[in-house]
């Protein structure tokens, strides 16, 4: 029969210790954030109400709600999605269905990585130089949303490409053998089988777009506007910038107000993310091939 020697026991003890150490490091990574979220909820929840979401800021933004910022964020996200989804899906289609393994494809992949790595404030400078000034959109929802669209493009491309590449090659070959063109194959086979995967990527993009602040600061988001935007050429308030303004630029703000805004912002972002993750897991479990 096997009996543990001194050296076996020592190894066992070391292993338990090592496991404990790394477990603690993981916990230390997550716990502070959990604590912070706890503080946000504790201090922010008293101001939360339906009224807070649906009324305008009053008294020099020291009281009232966040309605214009909420509406503005919806505008910004919607226009950014309209601009980025077609381009992102086209790019993913090219990379997944057409691209040969050559220098151009490698350059495209490198460009996508770099586009994701460019600092958000540099995207803002680009938005000012290109959309606000060169294309003469002025500081408007259109300029801000296009800046956001380019910034979050890599999210759409990468997730859409993954979804398309997950469609088995045999599906495409079966379709081609019936005499279908490449486009017919894409429309009838590739897209229907990857649409849910693309959708998870889009949800992820929404969550990313909602939180961005720097790219919209100089391209279309305003500190305070007493009216709601009527078209894409208007400026708008936005949730993320509103939190920045309230917590740094406005004097005599009651303490709970910025906590409330931060809480709403983080709730939107995290719930979109959670939906995306849950949807992805559901799709994985339903997968038939």
């Amino acid at each position, binding site marked *: 029969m096997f009996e543990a020697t001194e050296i076996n026991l020592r190894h066992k003890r070391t292993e338990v210790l090592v496991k404990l150490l790394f477990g603690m490091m993981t916990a*230390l990574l997550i716990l502070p954030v959990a604590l912070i979220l706890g503080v946000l909820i504790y201090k922010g929840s008293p101001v939360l109400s339906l009224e807070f979401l649906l009324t305008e800021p009053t008294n020099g933004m020291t009281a009232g709600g966040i309605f214009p910022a909420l509406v503005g964020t919806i505008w910004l996200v919607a226009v950014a999605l309209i601009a980025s989804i077609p381009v992102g899906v086209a790019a993913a289609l090219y990379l997944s*269905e057409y691209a040969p393994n050559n220098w151009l494809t490698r350059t495209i992949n490198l460009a996508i990585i770099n586009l994701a790595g460019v600092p958000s404030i540099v995207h803002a400078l680009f938005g*000012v130089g290109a959309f606000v000034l060169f294309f003469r959109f002025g500081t408007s929802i259109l300029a801000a949303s296009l800046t956001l669209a*380019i910034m979050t493009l890599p999210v759409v491309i990468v997730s859409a490409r993954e979804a398309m590449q997950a469609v088995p090659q045999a599906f495409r070959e079966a379709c081609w053998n019936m005499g279908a063109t490449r486009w017919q194959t894409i429309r009838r086979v590739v897209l229907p089988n990857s649409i849910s995967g693309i959708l998870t990527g889009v949800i992820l993009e929404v969550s990313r777009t909602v939180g961005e602040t720097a790219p919209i600061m100089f391209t279309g988001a305003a500190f305070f506007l007493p009216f709601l935007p009527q078209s894409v050429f208007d400026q708008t308030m936005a949730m993320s910038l509103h939190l*920045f303004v309230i917590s740094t630029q406005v004097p005599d703000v009651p303490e709970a107000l910025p906590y409330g805004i931060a809480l709403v912002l983080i709730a939107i972002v995290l719930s979109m993310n959670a939906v995306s993750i849950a949807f992805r897991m559901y799709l994985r479990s339903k997968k038939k091939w």
Partner: protein
Amino acid sequence: MRATAADQTILDRRNLDWYIDKAVQVLVFVGGISAIIFIIGIFVFIAREGAGFIFTRWDPIEFFTSPRWAPTSSHNPTYGALALILGTASITGLAMVVAVPFSLGAAIYIGEFASGRLRESLKVLVELLAAIPSVVWGFIGLSIMNPLIIQWFNVPVGLNVLNAGVILGLMAAPIMTTIAEDALKAVPDTYREAAEAMGATRWQVIFKVVLPAAKPGRLAAVLLGVGRGFGETMAVLMASGHSINLPTSIFDSVRALTATIAAELGETAHGSDHYQALFVLGIFLFAITFVINLTADLVVRGIRNR
């Protein structure tokens, strides 16, 4: 027998579907190269705004060696970026000191020790942490970390390198954890099995086999963390104190490159020296992050080609 004109008409399969197919191919190709167009576009448009300054007023020696960033001075505006560069570097450096050990530790725990449900939940949790917007992190630095630092370390101001560095470390850690965990997962199981067959214990396998084999992946994770640190704007703007200093301790307030652009662009007149100088900072940031991302990509590709 040669094909007659009639034969060629029959053989010609260019019907409507053929044309649609070709049109789609062109459209998709344009979409495909869009990322390249945008990267070039970003460079062209920020260079276009900053070019006037570079060719007339810009003094590289002043830019890289003078700590005096005083573009609004009426009699003698100076454009020394040294304090801003060191501000960004000190915050990013401290962030890496915080993030590297913890993200590597977490990656090892999630990748090598945790299993089943625990592992899946930890991965989801890490993914959610990575999603918290930077303006919210900035707010946390401003209103939660600031009083804590003043109280714990008995210093007059809590908005400093320590605050911004810890915030940035917490922001970068989830992404670095994910990349490091991918790198650990990419180490072939046969390596682990070979070591176990030689009688190695689990932690011996991790320290002597898995970690050395995943070295390029760990490097890539750190590089991407550094890139994130250099580019982070809102959190650093709100938590660093935003005052021009050559940092001598972690309790000094500093100002970062990104934060300078974010704070000053709104107050400058279009086309002025100050306005153009901010675009020059942008070109500098673009160049740094470009090199960092390129290096990280080469390191990662090195793993794949091995």
